[in-house]
């Protein structure tokens, strides 16, 4: 645990603080904080990683520290950082639950009223109302997430919000107190730092993801990678059948997707094996890869009648995959299944968008929170 490592730790912390400070005061504030951290660490017994951690823990989360300079300071400015703080999270969940319940009730009434007045056969219209509902819920959740992030980032706004909730009798004391207690326990009973054999285990706390220490990758990743490659090959082989352009486009996207998944799994395995840290970025990228299907799904939503299926005539006994290639007959989707196909496509579009956005939000949210977590973990 050398002085150099302690200084690196200070630099990384101060870089984080600087990120959230107004440019005109950033240099001065950081210089002053640096002298403070060094002074206090020296008083605690020297410039070691452990002592520096203690000082940083007292200073708190870099984002929160920086926000104290901005909000209520000379330069009143609204800070925005994606992510909801622990004490506001129960409120977010509660508000989302209520809003979702109201939206569902509203749309259910709309569907019932439509079924009552409209034609019973208009299944697709009902499906569209349903899709509209899911889309509304998605946007409402995202909107609330952004709004609560703004409130979380600004101590004055947060205080105001909590006061309003209290005045309205909507205070969630139990959850907030529990969150506070968890934090207090983490501060009061810091995990003992004993001998650490490798440097990265100390510095690892600086990585965005604190629970990443001593992670050993699963060999399952390699297996999954080979399965994905094999499936990509099979899908590619199917694409030699006389499908129309729409379906060939789909099969090419699917095989490319599977190849990319296989590559990411393999890279993830070696990355995790080498760094002993879990790669959350790989998980995020895999979720975002689903966006590849969006262009095809949008086209398919319009030209649904062009979707083709492969069936095996009953006179053939299918023993394996290659029988499918040999005896498979391509047919277009039956008319009566068109509305169902459209519903599935719309749901798939929404699912891919929501999954991708959640993965991105999760990835972004974890980064600024991490500091407080691993500071408390010391």
């Amino acid at each position, binding site marked *: 645990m050398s002085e150099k490592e302690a200084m690196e730790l200070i630099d990384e912390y101060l870089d984080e603080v600087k990120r959230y400070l107004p440019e005109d005061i950033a240099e001065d*504030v950081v210089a002053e904080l640096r*002298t*403070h951290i060094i002074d206090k660490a020296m008083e605690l017994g020297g410039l070691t990683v452990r002592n520096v951690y203690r000082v940083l823990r007292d200073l*708190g989360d870099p984002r929160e520290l920086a926000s104290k300079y901005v909000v*209520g300071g000379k330069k009143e400015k609204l800070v925005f950082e994606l992510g909801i703080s622990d004490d506001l999270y129960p409120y977010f969940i509660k508000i989302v639950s209520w809003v979702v319940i109201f939206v569902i009730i509203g749309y259910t009434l709309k569907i019932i009223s439509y079924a009552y007045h409209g034609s019973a056969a208009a299944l697709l219209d009902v499906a569209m109302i349903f899709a509209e509902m899911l889309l509304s819920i998605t946007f409402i959740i995202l909107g609330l997430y952004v709004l609560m992030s703004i409130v979380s980032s600004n101590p004055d706004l947060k205080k105001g919000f909590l006061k309003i909730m209290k005045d309205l009798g909507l205070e969630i004391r139990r959850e907030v107190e529990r969150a506070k207690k968890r934090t207090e326990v983490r501060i009061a009973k810091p995990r003992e730092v004993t001998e650490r054999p490798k440097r990265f285990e100390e510095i690892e706390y600086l990585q965005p993801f604190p629970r990443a220490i001593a992670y050993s990758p699963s060999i399952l990743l390699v297996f999954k990678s080979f399965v994905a490659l094999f499936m990509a090959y099979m899908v590619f082989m199917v694409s030699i059948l006389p499908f129309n352009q729409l379906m060939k486009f789909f099969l090419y996207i699917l095989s490319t997707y599977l190849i990319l998944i296989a590559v990411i799994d393999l890279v993830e395995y070696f990355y995790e094996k080498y760094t002993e840290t879990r790669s959350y970025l790989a998980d995020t990228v895999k979720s975002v890869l689903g966006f590849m299907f969006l262009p095809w799904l949008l086209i398919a939503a319009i030209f649904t009648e062009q979707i083709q299926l492969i069936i095996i005539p009953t006179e053939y006994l299918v023993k394996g995959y290659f029988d499918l290639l040999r005896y498979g007959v391509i047919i277009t989707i039956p008319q009566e299944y068109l509305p169902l196909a459209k519903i599935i496509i719309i749901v798939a579009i929404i699912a891919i968008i929501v999954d991708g956005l959640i993965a991105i939000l999760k990835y972004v949210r974890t980064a600024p929170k991490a500091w407080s977590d691993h500071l408390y973990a010391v």
Partner: protein
Amino acid sequence: MDDVDIDTWKTEIKRGIVEMCILALLSKKEMYGYEISKTIKQLSSGFLTIEEGTLYPLLRRLEGKGYIRGEWKIVHDKARKYYKITSLGLQVFAEMRSFWKKLSSIVNNIVEVKEGE
């Protein structure tokens, strides 16, 4: 009033006092941030503590209001930002102090009033 309310009340009372204490210390001599924090803790026997995460932004705010002025100086081979009180700060401190004296004596009269008085 439960524990949480009492804690909030105590914190709010202390917050206002700390500003006055900082001005009081700086009216005697110039000091750097950590020195201010240690001195307050020491003089109050640990009763008044100011978190560092609050102290430095507070100093910056007092500087912004023109009550104190920060200046980088090298003392014993160490560069530190020393704060000194300005004339405006001295005026504000004088007002704070007279208000505090009045307030504390009145509040004491009310709080310490004995039965039958």
